[in-house]
């Protein structure tokens, strides 16, 4: 058997980390989709999840904390031939990068965003993230939100996302299905992947998620935005996983005349004569 195109390297993650399952699943999905590694750019910000791109044999862009989405969007705009996938954490995506999250949903560039959501800050060792559970004044937890917990599914839907899904690192088959659907979706696709942080999150453990996650059944219509909003608001004894919402809409490139011809921007050249004509318009 041939060596697969996408392989992995040693990681710097804690033993038992949910990131391993995500890395393994993503590598499998990339091999299954069979896009050459040279055509795949894996983008990350900063954090444990953001290191994912360091561990797969593809092009890699490790940017700044919170700023992976604008860079990823621009990579795709510059070269439409590339498959651009962001792997990064809940703090990077929803905290430091909150403004970019909101506006990249609106921008609808054809990129895929896998948020490794462990509801805690791991690399900085245990501070609450925007998605951490609310604090219970009677049972003080190390990492909980004094304010409202951020609901990324609901925010993405409100901002006009065209693909909103949730999955769980403990269900690799489901995760692989979500990843493939997200990568294939034309436009910005968000998959919020619940994963345990074995070192710091003692509340949202593997067992916690395992008990609660429940795949959406056939009765859920992913084209129904109101139904999606209802499912997005469920996060308690049951947590629905699956494609909450998917909607075909023009992507960024469909709205920009300079990108209409699908020729990668990086391959375009403007003739010297056109430049000179433009200059002469100011005579």
């Amino acid at each position, binding site marked *: 058997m041939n060596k697969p195109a996408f392989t992995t390297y040693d990681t*710097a993650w804690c033993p038992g980390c949910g990131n391993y399952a995500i890395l393994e699943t993503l590598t499998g999905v990339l091999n299954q989709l069979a896009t050459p*590694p*040279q*055509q795949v*750019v894996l*983008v990350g910000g*900063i954090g444990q999840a953001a*290191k994912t*791109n*360091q561990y797969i*044999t*593809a*092009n*890699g*862009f*490790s*940017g*700044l904390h919170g*700023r992976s989405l*604008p*860079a*990823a*969007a*621009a*990579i795709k*705009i*510059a*070269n439409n*031939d*590339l498959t651009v996938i962001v792997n990064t954490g809940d703090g990077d995506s929803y905290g430091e990068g909150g*403004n*970019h999250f*909101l*506006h990249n949903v609106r921008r609808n560039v054809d990129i895929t965003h896998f948020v490794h959501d462990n509801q805690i800050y791991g690399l900085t060792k245990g501070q609450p993230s925007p998605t951490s559970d609310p604090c219970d004044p009677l049972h003080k937890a190390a990492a909980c939100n004094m304010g409202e917990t951020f609901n990324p599914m609901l925010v993405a839907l409100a901002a006009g996302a065209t693909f909103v899904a949730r999955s769980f690192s403990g269900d690799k088959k489901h995760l692989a299905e979500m990843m493939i659907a997200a990568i294939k979706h034309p436009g910005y696709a968000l998959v919020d992947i619940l994963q345990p942080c074995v070192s710091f999150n003692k509340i949202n453990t593997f067992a916690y998620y395992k008990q609660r996650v429940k795949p959406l059944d056939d009765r859920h219509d992913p084209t129904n935005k109101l139904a999606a909003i209802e499912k997005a608001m469920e996060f308690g004894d049951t947590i629905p996983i699956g494609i909450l919402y998917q909607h075909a809409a023009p992507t960024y490139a469909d709205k*920009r*005349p*300079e*990108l209409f011809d699908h020729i990668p*921007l*990086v391959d*375009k*050249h*403007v003739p*010297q004569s*056109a*430049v*000179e004509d*433009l*200059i*002469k318009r*100011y*005579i």
Partner: protein
Amino acid sequence: MYNILLGGAAGDGIETMSAIFEKMLKQSGCHLFTIRDFMSRVRGGHNFTQIRFGNQPLHAHRDTLNGIFAIDETTYLEHQSRLSYDGFILCDESLVIDDFRAIKCPLKKTAANLGNPKVINSVATGALLKLFDIPLDHAASILKATLRADLVDVNLSAIKMGYDLLNTNYHQSPVETSEQLLLSGNTAIGLGAVAAGIRFYSAYPMSPSTSLLDFFNAQSSSMAIAVEQAEDEIAAINMAIGASYAGATAMTGTSGGGFSLMVEALGFAGIAEIPLVAVDVQRPGPATGFPTRTEQSDLQFVISASQGEFPRMVIALRDHADCFYQTARSLALAKKYQLPVILLSDQYLADSTTTVPIFDSSKIVRFDQSDAAVSATNDPPYQRYALTENGISPLAIPGKSPALVRVDSDEHDPWGKITESATVRNQMVNKRLIKLNALKEELIEPEFWGSHQCQLLLVGFGSTSGAIKEAVDILNQNENNYGALIFGDIYPLPTERLRHFATQVVEIINVEQNATGQLASLIREEALINCDHSILKYDGRQLSVDDILNGIKNLKGGF
């Protein structure tokens, strides 16, 4: 040579009137230099444009006025002290202006008779053209190119009726201007970027850089430029970096406040060695400062912005030709040395319009991606940060070669992977910094202007160039003793020509549009040369030729 001012409230149409009047002047054989002074508001207040024109090239504004067109009394009150004794004030007959220089005309009545009171400015334009003996030959075509189609005829009639209101009082022989462009500094930056093959521009609107974003938006589809109005300046610069990584010639632009937000990503471009050009069109700070006014106070900020140490280059744009040629050069240098290049402009240069010899795009030195962009291999694995003698690693483009290209904001090894090795850290810091050695070889020394036997040397940078040169010319008419060095390339600071003149002259005077003498500090730090006196201005209004002459006069007691 004449100097006139058109003034009124925001919303009075002074900007449009000025644009038409300037084109009329240029087409009829005048050189001109126009500055725009406007308030950060959409209606009301007091705005003016000041148009200096004549039959030789002009590079700066002067204070003394030959004429004022006053839409309101405020314009007269604000500027009458600068009007020469034999100057004029053109205004409507209804204005309460008690001055023997006033030429009161039925501007409003004429406009009303044409059925559109808003064409009053075109009536005045016609009157001014007659006063200065400018023929109406080009009026129709200029109006067509400037105004909405349904407004052309009525404005043309207005200009013609205004023309009949006055007699000619000034005349100068026209010169050939068909090989001249008429444009603003920001437009010239945009054209320079287009000529250098820009494919991606991202920005967040911020005065006085916004017209650059507008320019690229207008040229987007015809010049194959993806233009993104980002959610903030942090996104704008990170997008430019992403696009550049993917192989697109990319640029971002802002003013000091936005640049403050870009600072972390500037260092990212530095450590990740991703070509990037960032334009800082300066305005007075700190914080919101004076949004629509001018200053050169970001110099020390941009040369040191961002944590850590990495190579960068800063070029101060001196005039409209620099805006074109140096923007193109900056994009080439950013690619050649794989580092961030910062262009320093300011509101004065950005918004002023002038006649300038037609830009020659064949003179632009492009840096096309090296062979590595497409010929890199992945066996053995491609090293994005290969250690080389001059520090420059072959740059591959993702998807364009078999190489896998990985870049990192963390300290990284030659393959672009995170490292914490002390040895590799030293290698990488050194590798990045030695790129400056080669870059320093191609720095452009400051332009020298004046008498080579000078005893008194003015030093300046950026947009004060025109005023400094004209002041030196005037000073040398009396005593041929003045010279000036005007820096374009400013960081790293080229010091050879400065050292040469420093040994010759008696006094060095730094002329800067800031309060603390930031160029003088840089010169002291880089060349161990002290400036003896300073002429500084920081009220948001550009240093004029007259400010420099007055500054010299005031210093003379101290020489």
